[in-house]
């Protein structure tokens, strides 16, 4: 669907002439004239207005009945009144109606002080009630989920929460039950409302009916401060408000930025803030002493690290991940360069050459998040968005639902977006390269390249599935035109030893679809770590020779035993290294077993620096709380090390100074000031497009992908990470409920053959490694594959047997 065109019109409201874009809803247009029309049910991020609460009634000349301002698009010459007696009578009526069954228990309500119902009653109500009948009373609060409490007495039936569940996250678990005055918000048969985005309903509820269980009664609105920053628990980098009381983060709210998040958060982002204030957090430097990690003074830790680095000169390998900022990466890169080390990486599974990676992320090919809203077609390739970058899952759903975006899903593991997809291709785990090559051949469509059949077979899929995706992409623009296509591709698709070939195939697809330079179209990679893009741009791009057995390993906010697919290789590598220096917040396995020096990593609420969103938007993290415990800033630690190692360029005094130096060093970021980044971020591919190097965007002649490694009669292993796979989640008491046994997802066909039932506990083994898991049968899993969460197993084949 094409983006709507904007045309300004003039209308009159309460005697004022106001100019507004045509078809804006009256309540929004009124704001442009400083007129406030009260609303309850209206929330533009939820989609079309429902007009249910009737709070926004206004008088429009020429229309006999009062109209709802939330659903009336403004037209040129409209004359609107919001202050007439009729309107006031209606507004007082609605407030009176809403309050008759409301318990008016504000003194014991968590919403008090930040409650739209209080504000609107104050502003537009009559101040009295004539309702003397007994009010309804019910048991309250009740649990709606482990993190949400519901108070049905207070609900005003605004439909916001159920619309969110039904039309935004589309989990459709939360519904209105019964009818009329008996209606209430609930779930099916006492099942809890547990879904990846459930917490948004707390923020949407305009009364105290839905409250956050972790936040209930922790603070009053006048005790708290709000601090705007980012959530860097995943590459989504949603903009957030931290609610801070006594230097503690008590809550996370969305800070709507339509370029990034549309005003939503996932439950990881909303509740894993608890990990900031848990005892398990590392808040003091540690050094391994006699085989044990012990807390030491900063001086000692810095000295040890500096000494070890000096000794390891020329044989250091560094891996960055997590929420490492651009500044931290920049300082570490400079520091290691001064020690003759360029083995810097940020893709735990390896990636294409820096040149090809830069081509994939080239400004001319770069899609922005909002492009998904109005693309003609979106291809989701080898990523499960709800796990890998949750907020984008909502974005894709929005495009499909509201604007008719055509969706193609090409993954190994069945995707939660499948029901929304117009074309689905399922390839064998690890066969993304062959799939993309097949797609390329199908898009080319003239039979001149390799045969689609053959490539599809190599990918473990069929020419029909590949063809369906190709046809959708080719003709999405109508009239057999490709139109604006956005390809959202997971980092996994271009990783591993054949990453270069996969990258070329993907560039070919982009070329066939003529995406280069096309407004509203392009590629969008979902990196495996929150600041994956920034880290690469700053220099953690692989490329250089990576020593397999370095003397020292520097781990900046990442633990490869958790994050890397080849866990055992890293286990060996870390075991052999003389020194392992890490910046970590939690004692995860790799840190516990292998670290020689541990610097406490400050949390994202404490961090000061910038990160780069997967679509090139540079965003700023601002400290919401002071450093906890004995922490220091990551940039500060690196500056200290630089000073000790005589690398003066890295001895910055402030984070902004580090940013300043980075912008001088990196043409893509040149001239971008922190002020300019502000609260919304700056997309460098838009601002500094010309700074990017010329890149070879193909098309390339592709090499025939090798036949996939045979699982030797076993099931082919696919791995995935759930949205909950993060140390912060494990450390957050509110999120304990999401932790459980790992799952192995099987097709019912294989399960029958193996005599295994759903829910059964099994052993999944691959070579010498094995793991226990609970069987989850999924009709949509292709026979012959098994999907296991986490990185305990490496494949390619796995045996599944009863435990």
């Amino acid at each position, binding site marked *: 669907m094409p983006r709507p065109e904007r045309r300004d019109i003039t209308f009159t409201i309460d005697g004022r002439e106001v100019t507004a874009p045509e078809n804006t809803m009256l309540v929004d247009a009124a704001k442009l004239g400083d007129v406030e029309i009260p609303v309850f049910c209206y929330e533009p991020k939820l989609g079309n207005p429902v007009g249910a609460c009737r709070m926004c009634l206004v008088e429009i000349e020429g229309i006999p009945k009062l109209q709802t301002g939330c659903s009336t698009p403004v037209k040129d010459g409209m004359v609107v009144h919001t202050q007439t007696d009729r309107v006031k009578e209606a507004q007082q009526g609605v407030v009176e109606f809403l309050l008759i069954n409301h318990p008016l228990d504000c003194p014991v309500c968590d919403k008090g002080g930040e409650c739209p119902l209080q504000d609107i009653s104050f502003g537009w109500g009559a101040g009295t009630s004539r309702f003397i009948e*007994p*009010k*309804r*009373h*019910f*048991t*309250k609060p*009740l*649990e*709606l*989920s*482990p993190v949400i409490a519901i108070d*049905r007495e207070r609900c005003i039936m605004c439909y916001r929460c159920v619309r969110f569940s039904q039309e935004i996250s589309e*989990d*459709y*678990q*939360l*519904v*209105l*039950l*019964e*009818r009329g*005055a*008996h209606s*209430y918000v*609930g*779930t*099916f*048969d*006492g*099942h*809890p*409302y*547990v*879904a990846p985005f459930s917490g948004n309903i707390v923020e949407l509820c305009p009364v105290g009916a839905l409250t956050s269980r972790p936040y209930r009664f922790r603070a009053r609105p006048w005790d708290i401060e709000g601090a705007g920053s980012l959530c860097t628990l995943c590459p989504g980098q949603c903009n957030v408000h931290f609610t801070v009381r006594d230097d503690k983060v008590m809550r996370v709210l969305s800070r709507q930025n339509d370029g990034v998040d549309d005003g939503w958060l996932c439950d990881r982002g909303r509740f894993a803030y608890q990990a900031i204030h848990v005892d398990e957090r590392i808040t003091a430097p540690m050094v391994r002493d006699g085989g044990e990690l012990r807390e030491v003074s900063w001086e000692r830790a810095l000295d040890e690290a500096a000494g070890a680095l000096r000794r390891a000169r020329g044989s250091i390998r560094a891996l960055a991940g997590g929420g490492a900022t651009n500044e931290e990466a920049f300082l570490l890169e400079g520091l290691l360069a001064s020690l003759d080390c360029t083995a810097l990486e940020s893709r735990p599974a390896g990636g294409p050459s820096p040149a090809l990676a830069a081509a994939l992320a080239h400004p001319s090919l770069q899609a922005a998040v909002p492009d998904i809203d109005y693309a003609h077609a979106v291809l989701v390739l080898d990523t499960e968005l709800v796990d890998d970058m949750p907020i984008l899952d909502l974005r894709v759903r929005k495009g499909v639902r509201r604007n008719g975006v055509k969706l193609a899903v090409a993954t190994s593991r069945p995707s939660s977006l499948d*029901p929304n997809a117009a074309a689905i291709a399922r390839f064998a785990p690890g066969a993304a390269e062959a799939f993309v090559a097949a797609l390329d051949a199908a898009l080319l469509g003239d039979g001149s390249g390799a045969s689609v059949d053959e490539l599809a077979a190599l990918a473990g899929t069929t020419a029909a599935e590949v063809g369906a995706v190709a046809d959708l992409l080719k003709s999405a623009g109508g009239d057999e035109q490709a139109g604006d296509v956005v390809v959202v591709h997971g980092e996994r698709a271009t990783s591993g030893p054949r990453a270069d070939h996969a990258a070329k195939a993907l560039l070919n697809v982009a070329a066939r679809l003529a995406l280069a330079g096309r407004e509203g179209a392009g590629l969008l990679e979902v990196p495996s770590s929150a600041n994956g893009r920034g880290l690469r741009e700053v220099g953690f791009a692989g490329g250089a020779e990576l020593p397999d057995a370095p003397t020292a390993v520097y781990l900046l906010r990442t633990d490869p035993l958790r994050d890397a697919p080849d866990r055992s290789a890293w286990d060996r590598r870390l075991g052999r290294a003389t020194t392992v220096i890490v910046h970590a917040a939690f004692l995860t396995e790799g840190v516990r077993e292998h670290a020689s020096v541990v610097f406490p990593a400050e949390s994202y609420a404490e961090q000061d620096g910038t990160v780069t969103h997967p679509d090139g938007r540079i965003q700023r993290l601002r400290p919401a709380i002071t450093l906890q415990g004995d922490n220091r800033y990551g940039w500060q630690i690196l500056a200290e090390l630089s000073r000790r190692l005589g690398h003066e360029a890295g001895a910055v005094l402030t984070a902004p100074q580090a940013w300043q130096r980075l912008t001088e060093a990196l043409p893509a970021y040149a001239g971008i000031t922190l002020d300019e980044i502000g609260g919304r971020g700056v997309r460098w591919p838009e601002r500094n497009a010309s700074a990017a190097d010329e890149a070879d965007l193909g098309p390339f002649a592709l090499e025939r992908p090798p036949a996939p490694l045979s699982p030797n009669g076993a099931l082919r292993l696919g791995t995935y990470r759930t949205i909950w796979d993060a140390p912060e989640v494990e450390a957050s008491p509110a999120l304990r*409920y999401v932790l459980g046994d790992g799952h192995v997802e099987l*097709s*019912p066909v294989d*399960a029958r053959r193996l005599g295994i039932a*759903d829910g059964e506990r099994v052993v999944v083994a691959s070579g010498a490694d094995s793991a226990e898991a609970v069987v989850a*049968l*999924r*009709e949509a899993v292709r026979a012959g594959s098994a999907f296991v969460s986490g990185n305990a197993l490496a494949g390619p084949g796995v045996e599944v047997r009863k435990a």
Partner: protein
Amino acid sequence: MTSVPRYAHGSRVPGWDEAVDLDKDPASVPEPATTPVPDDLRAEIEGYVARYPDRRSAAIPALWAVQRRYGWCAPEGVTQAAEVLRLTPAYLMAVATFYDMLETRPVGRNTVYVCTNISCSLCGADELLARIQREVGDDSDFNVRGFECLGACDIAPMASVNGTYVGPIALDEVPELVAQVRAGEEPLPARQLRGRASVDPGADRPAPGEAGAGA
């Protein structure tokens, strides 16, 4: 949690006071691999699906099918229908609780709706309902309900007995009616709507332009 006072004439609805069971899994769209659906139920629902341009339209017919099979919209049946329709069971439950005739708690299999709306009540419907309830007593085979206007005010006071409209029903006919239902017989055959002639005195003449009618 201490209990709070309730008001007899407040609108206390089953459900309002119910918390969820945190030990249950969330109820998403049922997974086909783990949700067995009886073949005939699946075939029936798929038959409804084929009538409409959109699968969801079969929601009410599917719930009817569940109710016929289980006697009410039992969670198990609703989950099965949800699997066939590729919806969440909550979606279907939201629909089921909206409509008066879809039962969301187990009920007796003989349904007697007594119309108690204005016209019928002017003709003694409230007394009729009370009389039927007394006659049925605590027989759990019955589901006797006062109902909104059933669209049969011409035979007031009336009842819909397992879907058959019967009226006017005199109070002293109630024992016979209930006995017939218990025995699985036709309820008050002489009082059934289907045998009733039009009261309009002109209804036996043909319309202009219509070939010779005549009853």
